[in-house]
């Protein structure tokens, strides 16, 4: 798969079919990859595909000028489709190099599983449905479902639907909503007061680095409402009330564009369980409006569209 990707990427640049290639190259730390954004065909040899290609590269599309060949897992491809729906990206300007994705390994889960930090591990490899973790020379084996990201467990589209070049065999979806939705179920078991307190607590750690927003392909506004000063909607200080207000409104604003790629939760430096917000919104949008972001290129964006009769029960 990797070899094919490198060849295709190189060819795309050589033939002038794209100006840029966006993919992954090995990162500077163990078990990491890093986005590679290049115009140089020689860089194509650095491209990799492995169980650690975490980033949703669609995030870079709106800011890049010119035609782009982009490596996309299923979730990334949904973000790309969503951007196309919103006229942020022109379909003809992207060449989607589709990676059928067996799920990405969540190193935080690995750390919790073996009680060691990621840089203390000797090796983490995936073999089919198992993951083999080597620590202090000893091998430990776990079902891969124990270390995949929650959003990967819930994945409805491992192989991009919208693509130009398919790398490897398509994988059928097999969402495990029971496991991936455990956190949300637990939250729903609490009283409203407890839930509000929970979120207040969680957001009290927020330092307002805006990584969740900046890493989100659905958050493409030139100027975010938190940065408005006339009026100042949200105080730009990291206080739980303002943090929570920011996060709630951000979630509502990306409703119908959030593809549950899980990036916001992954990048949060203070471990705020943001996916418990985004996924609930995702399910809610599906339930109310039968809409899933980025699944259908022809569908009208959620907030520009309506049905005559829907979601009316609470209107007086």
């Amino acid at each position, binding site marked *: 798969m990797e070899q094919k990707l490198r060849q295709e990427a190189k060819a795309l640049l050589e033939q002038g079919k794209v100006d840029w290639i966006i993919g992954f190259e090995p990162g500077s*730390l163990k078990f990491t990859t890093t*986005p590679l954004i290049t115009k140089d065909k020689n860089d194509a040899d650095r491209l990799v595909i492995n169980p650690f290609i975490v980033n949703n590269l669609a995030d870079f599309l709106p800011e890049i000028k010119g035609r782009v060949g982009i490596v996309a897992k299923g979730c990334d491809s949904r973000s790309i489709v969503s951007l196309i729906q919103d006229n942020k990206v022109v379909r003809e300007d992207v060449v989607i190099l589709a990676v059928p994705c067996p799920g990405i390994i969540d190193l935080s889960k690995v750390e919790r599983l073996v009680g060691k*930090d990621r*840089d203390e591990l000797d090796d983490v490899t995936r073999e089919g449905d198992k993951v083999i973790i080597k620590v202090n020379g000893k091998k430990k084996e776990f079902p891969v479902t124990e270390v995949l990201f929650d959003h990967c467990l819930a994945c409805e589209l491992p192989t991009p639907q919208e693509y130009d070049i398919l790398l490897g065999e398509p994988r059928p979806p097999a969402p495990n909503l029971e496991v991936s939705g455990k956190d949300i179920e637990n939250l729903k078991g609490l009283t409203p007061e407890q839930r509000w307190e929970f979120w207040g607590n969680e957001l009290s750690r927020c330092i307002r680095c805006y990584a969740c927003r900046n890493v989100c392909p659905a958050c493409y506004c030139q100027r975010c409402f938190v*940065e408005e000063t006339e009026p100042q909607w949200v105080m*730009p200080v990291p206080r739980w009330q303002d943090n929570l207000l920011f996060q709630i409104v951000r979630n509502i604003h990306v409703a119908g564009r959030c593809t549950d790629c899980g990036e916001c939760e992954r990048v949060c*430096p203070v471990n705020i369980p943001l996916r418990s917000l985004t996924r609930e919104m995702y399910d809610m949008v599906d339930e109310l409006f039968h809409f899933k972001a980025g699944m259908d290129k022809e569908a009208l964006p959620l907030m520009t569209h309506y049905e005559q009769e829907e979601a009316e029960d609470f209107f007086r």
Partner: protein
Amino acid sequence: MANKKVNKKDIAKLLNQWRQQFTVLAPSKENGVAQMAEWDGKDTSFLDWYRNTVIPPKASFLPPMEEMFRFQKDKEGYHIELPPTNEHKQLIFGIRPCDARAMTILDMTFEEAYQDPYYLSRRKNAVLVGLGCTNPCESCFCTSMGVSPTESTNVDLMLTDIGDQFLIEVVTDKGKELIAKASGLKEATKDDEAKAKETKETSYNKITRKLDTEGIVDKLQASFDDEGFWEQTAAKCISCGICTLLCPTCYCFDINDELVRGEGTRFRSWDSCGFPVYTKMPMENPRLEKWRRVRQKVCHKFEFYPMTFNVIACTGCGRCIRLCPVNWDITQVLESVPVKTGVRK
């Protein structure tokens, strides 16, 4: 003063003695995020898990947000009032040498020219008890920044792991006082000193990430206008504030007012040069482009700070590398700065 030692299992006792006089802050890990937090009087499990905090200890001196003053309006006009002064003294237990050095670097900015009363009063009232690293992270590169993972330069007391005990180096007068008021400490023997020396050497050699900063100021100066280089360097940056807000030497801040039902407060809060609005003026923005902001971040630390204070504003703590959403690695960036002959212009 001769060095002391303390049994690891007596650390709680020691901290409780200091707690009489200080608010003791120690590594704590609520919700999986390590930071210096008020010690509960019992838990010393951090001695096992603690490598370094996510939130740098600067947060105890330059908090993520703080009240600068309050204001009120009545018939006579506005009245300004300082927030209740926080006279309580902080003892930071377990600060790593890289972060302790960062405090010294921050002192330069806050003491220089105009004194910053908020930061300096906290700093003056605080004592730092360092704890040498024995298990540094893969992302750490302190030794390249002139910091040893066990050095005692910027703390008041320094602890070094010597097996079941810690060797305690008394570094400053403040440290001397701390020791004088503590019971249950023993004199360190020659053997202990030798063990500590060994720990220090081993730790030092565990730092594998290297960065050559020789001539970095000149190199950056020569490449300052190399737009192509900076654009390439900035390409994968997402302009979030993680690497700056969580950097132990970053100090940039924002000032904002809030008025709620006649009660006003002016806040100071962490800010980041990575944000586009940071330099935005109504009519123009000198650092609108991402590459300009990335350049500012790199050059502030490795070019401008050395020009002004003769010291690089980076201690190699590695947080920016570990926590970056896209693995933007400062060591790689600095190594890729093109070598150019001749000075700019």
